[in-house]
């Protein structure tokens, strides 16, 4: 009997507030070291925390989006441990009663099937600072700019059964926090970080002992780390050993996980309610205000795309996978051929973005230009084929669609007389082929189309070209 992997994820999402969770320091990334600090986030003696309202609202928004119960009374606790980037010697977090209770997330897997993953809880906490180990030879430098940045830790149930399900969950969560505009989701800058709990069992048996893998800051690393961990645990179990419950670090360079046991030693966090903070009590009206401000969520948007634009489920799913892409699509497709727009975005645009490593948010082609490009196809200024050439220029160099068409002389030739002249020249140059065609060799029609199109530098309107060519060839000479 084969092994079944059981995966649960803990995701730390940096909330995109203006200021830190317990003080008014800016949260902006990339400032001079320790510039964004104050007595509170430096933990100077006597400084006290005051909770940021926006962090609370963003946590509520998340809870509502995953259909979770919002706890009307939640408690901040202290998690006590010593580390140089943790200035107070404790992290303010939520322990026994978090702000967001049970919820769920609906995934669409690669094969089109759907799966529900349970969300156990989500709680507010503060981020730590950064330890810089490379800057000095004998010392570690401490930068506390990030200390106190609000985090929402989202804990899933152990509901995932393959690396790809884990990735699908993480991607869906990533899309959701960006839809909700509660995080920039920037994985390189650490705004969206994932730990994975992985264990193996024989199907139907109780859960096995799990290992917690840290430092998974990309979808690919998550997949790789789980795959590695599955093999590692399988080797242990099949050789009669026991998996040790421990924290492991994913080493992206080596593609393997290694034990962090030394750091785990004697961890006793001594949680207790933070006496500097009172219970967070939420009125029903407060929750309803947040609910009213929620944007259209991915699943609802997908449904609307299918109905309003007549798109297939697959297309609607891809186009609503991020709020930015969906918004882009809606600008492009407004009043145009919706399927044509979908094909262009899913094929050409996403392909180009993928090749250049860019995101839709930083797409060099503004939605307005993309829309204009498709309009020029629809109004027959250019053909679909020429449009691809225009798109390449647009993507590489920018500028305006019409300017590119004019500058490069790509405007489609729609004047029947001009097309007829091109055709006549082609026919005149190829008398043998003309004779063969008229003798019944129909396949040569394509040859003439190609020659005439080539003569027009691809600009002839294909339908007119076909029609006039057929007229000329079928004309008894």
């Amino acid at each position, binding site marked *: 009997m084969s092994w079944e992997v059981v995966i649960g994820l803990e995701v730390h999402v940096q909330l995109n507030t203006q200021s830190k969770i317990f003080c008014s320091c800016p949260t902006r990334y990339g400032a001079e070291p320790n510039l964004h600090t104050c007595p509170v986030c430096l933990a100077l003696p006597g400084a006290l925390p005051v909770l940021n309202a926006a962090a609370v609202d963003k946590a509520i928004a998340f809870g509502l989006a995953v259909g979770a119960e919002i706890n009307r009374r939640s408690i901040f606790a202290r998690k006590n441990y010593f580390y140089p980037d943790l200035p107070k010697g404790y992290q303010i977090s939520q322990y026994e009663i978090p702000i967001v209770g049970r919820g769920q997330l609906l995934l669409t897997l690669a094969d089109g099937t759907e799966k529900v993953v349970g969300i156990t809880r989500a709680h507010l906490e503060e981020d730590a600072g950064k330890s810089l180990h490379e800057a000095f030879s004998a010392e570690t430098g401490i930068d506390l700019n990030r200390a106190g940045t609000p985090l929402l830790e989202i804990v899933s149930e152990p509901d995932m059964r393959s690396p790809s399900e884990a990735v699908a969950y993480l991607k869906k969560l990533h899309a959701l926090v960006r839809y909700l505009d509660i995080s920039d989701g920037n994985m390189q800058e650490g705004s969206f970080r994932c730990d994975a709990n992985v264990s193996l069992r024989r199907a139907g048996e109780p859960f096995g002992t799990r290992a917690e893998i840290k430092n998974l800051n990309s979808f690919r690393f998550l997949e790789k780390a789980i795959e590695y961990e599955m093999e590692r645990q399988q080797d242990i179990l099949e050789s009669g050993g026991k998996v040790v419950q421990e924290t492991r670090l994913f080493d992206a360079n080596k593609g393997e996980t290694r034990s962090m046991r030394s750091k785990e030693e*004697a961890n006793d966090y001594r949680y207790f309610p933070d006496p500097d903070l009172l219970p967070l009590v939420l009125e029903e009206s407060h929750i309803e205000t947040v609910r009213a401000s929620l944007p259209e969520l991915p699943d609802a948007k997908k449904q609307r795309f299918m109905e309003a634009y007549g798109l297939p489920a697959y297309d609607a799913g891809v186009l609503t996978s991020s709020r930015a892409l969906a918004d882009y699509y809606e600008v492009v497709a407004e009043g145009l051929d919706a399927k044509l727009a979908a094909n262009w975005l899913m094929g050409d645009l996403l392909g180009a973005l993928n090749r250049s490593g860019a995101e839709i948010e930083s797409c060099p082609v503004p939605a307005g230009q993309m829309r204009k490009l498709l309009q020029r196809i629809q109004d027959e200024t250019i053909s679909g084929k020429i449009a691809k050439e225009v798109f390449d220029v647009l993507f590489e160099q920018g500028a305006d669609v019409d300017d590119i068409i004019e500058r490069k002389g790509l405007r489609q030739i729609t004047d029947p007389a001009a097309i007829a002249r091109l055709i006549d020249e082609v026919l005149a140059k190829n008398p043998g082929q003309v004779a063969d065609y008229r003798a019944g060799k129909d396949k040569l029609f394509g040859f003439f189309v190609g020659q005439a199109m080539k003569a027009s530098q691809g600009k002839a309107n294909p339908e007119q070209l076909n029609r006039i060519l057929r007229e000329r060839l079928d004309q008894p000479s």
Partner: protein
Amino acid sequence: MSFTTDTVKRTASLARLALPEADLAHVAQQLEGILVLIEKLSAVPTEGVEIMAHPLELQQPLREDRADGRDLAGRDIYLKNAPVSADGLFLVPKVIE
């Protein structure tokens, strides 16, 4: 006696306090005395009693999400209290991960 020298050592390590080996027995004895004082709690019936975490029966106030400006002059005042700093960073002996 619940406060052995081992308990003292373990607790001191949790609290990051270096205690000289020679002091352990004396400290253990003093802590044991305090523990006896504390143990009187166990005789108090508390079934069904709610915990009291705080004297105020109020709720957490919220602060408007507004970031204040920060400048390097301010940061440098903070760094002045640091025993060791360089390039705007607080320094500690190298941490090996």
